[in-house]
């Protein structure tokens, strides 16, 4: 569960208002898609959820824990995939995964089993012994995904996770996200790929210049626009000047 209440955040001492009085809720068992033009405030919102940025105003509660009062517990219940897959180049893939497993106290046996499944799913088994500096962008992205799932988090937060993934991996990721929410867990992700959002999400939020301008199921969003054919039409219409 994610609960964002009246959150604002600005950069450069208030000059750039990145998120402006944002409120939204994502329930357990729900996949929530976060859309918006470049610079709308998606990454800023996500960074506040995972505790990288502190909101100027408002509150965020994840899994029942307030990010200000219980930051560690919040981060422990989140699996986070950032928008750029920067990982420790001098570690091998398996060292990286073990590092994460240790940090989240995942028991060895559970960790090995999960890592094996995920590595096979993302076709990374053969590369996991190599140094990460030899990985391609997509391979790093997959490794970060696997790492984020290793502790079976209750809340899965992803910032543009499809970038750089090959079609099969993108498909597998969508499967994982669906499975995750069927298990009663929460998925929150930002994306520019509207097809994916349309097909995958239970609810969609559209943010523009830091403000949530629309939020609801596909049907509800359609009602807000004149041209209701695809999410693309709706998005273009709603985000127009």
């Amino acid at each position, binding site marked *: 569960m994610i609960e964002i209440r009246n959150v604002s955040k600005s950069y450069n001492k208030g000059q750039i208002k990145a998120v402006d009085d944002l409120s939204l809720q994502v329930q357990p068992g729900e996949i929530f898609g976060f859309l918006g033009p470049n610079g709308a405030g998606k990454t800023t919102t996500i960074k506040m959820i995972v*505790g*990288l940025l502190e909101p100027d105003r408002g509150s965020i509660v994840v899994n029942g824990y307030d990010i200000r009062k219980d930051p560690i*517990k919040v*981060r422990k219940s989140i699996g*986070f995939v950032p928008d750029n897959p920067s*990982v420790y180049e001098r570690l091998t893939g398996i060292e990286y995964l073990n*590092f994460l497993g240790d*940090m989240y106290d995942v028991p060895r046996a559970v960790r090995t089993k999960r890592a094996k499944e995920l590595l096979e799913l993302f076709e990374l088994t053969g590369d996991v012994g190599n140094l990460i500096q030899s990985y391609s962008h997509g391979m790093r992205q997959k490794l970060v995904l696997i790492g984020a799932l290793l502790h079976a988090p209750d809340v899965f937060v992803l910032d543009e996770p499809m970038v750089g993934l090959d079609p099969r991996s993108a498909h597998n990721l969508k499967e994982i996200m669906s499975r995750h929410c069927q298990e009663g867990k929460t998925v929150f992700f930002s994306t520019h790929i509207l097809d994916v959002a349309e097909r995958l999400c239970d609810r969609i939020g559209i943010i523009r210049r830091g403000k949530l301008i629309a939020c609801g199921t596909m049907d509800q969003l359609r009602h807000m626009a004149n041209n209701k054919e695809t999410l693309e039409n709706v998005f273009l219409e709603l985000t127009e000047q």
Partner: protein
Amino acid sequence: MISSPLFVKELKEAKWKIITGLLITGITGASLPFLVDYLGVFVEQMAMPEWARSILGQQLGNYPLYLWSNWYGKNLLQFSVAFAVIIAGPLIAGERARNTLEFLASRPLSRVQIILTKAAAGSVSLGVIILVSTVITLVASYAAARPVPVAWFMSGLLPQYAGALVFFNLALMLSVRSDDGLKAAVIAGGIALLLFAAEWVAPLRGRTVISMMAASRSFVTGDVHFGHLFFMLLLALGLLWAALTAFRQSDV
């Protein structure tokens, strides 16, 4: 307070720095007992100012003086300071530059844990280099049939390490606000160089951290100067505190 997974990862990443550091300091230390013979030839044949000839002459006649002043007063002193800033400079800044600081800061670790763990791992790496190379120097002395009292010689390590921690935490403090680990190391190294230079200014001589590290008085008396030791440890702790405070306030 310390996160052991992070500690292990830090040591893994520092592996090559430790190995390189050990090679350079170890070889230098091991050659000291054998170079003393060449020093004699050098003093006889080279043209040099009278005062230099007299200092070198003294060292030649007194092997413990030669060993202490060259190891703790010169070679290890320079290496300790250099490795302190080289290890600490990139600790935070390097992660920021590689975009991995966000990775760390979004894990279930507090800022305090991150910096204390990194400081601990770095101090251990530095300590290993300083300790092992000094033991190598001592062993080489015995191998060259020039024994020196073990406890006496090893006592020089205490001020040496305490002073190295001062420069380590200075570089760490600079690292916290920077995204350039090399720059943090160079600035901290520059401050150390100024202190080296201050040894030439009469009123400052013997009063800088650098001279406290060399501990020439301990050489004479055989006692550790606990006042100096305490002063350096306090300074190191103060700098660590400053680094911690800055890190809690800074953006990742």
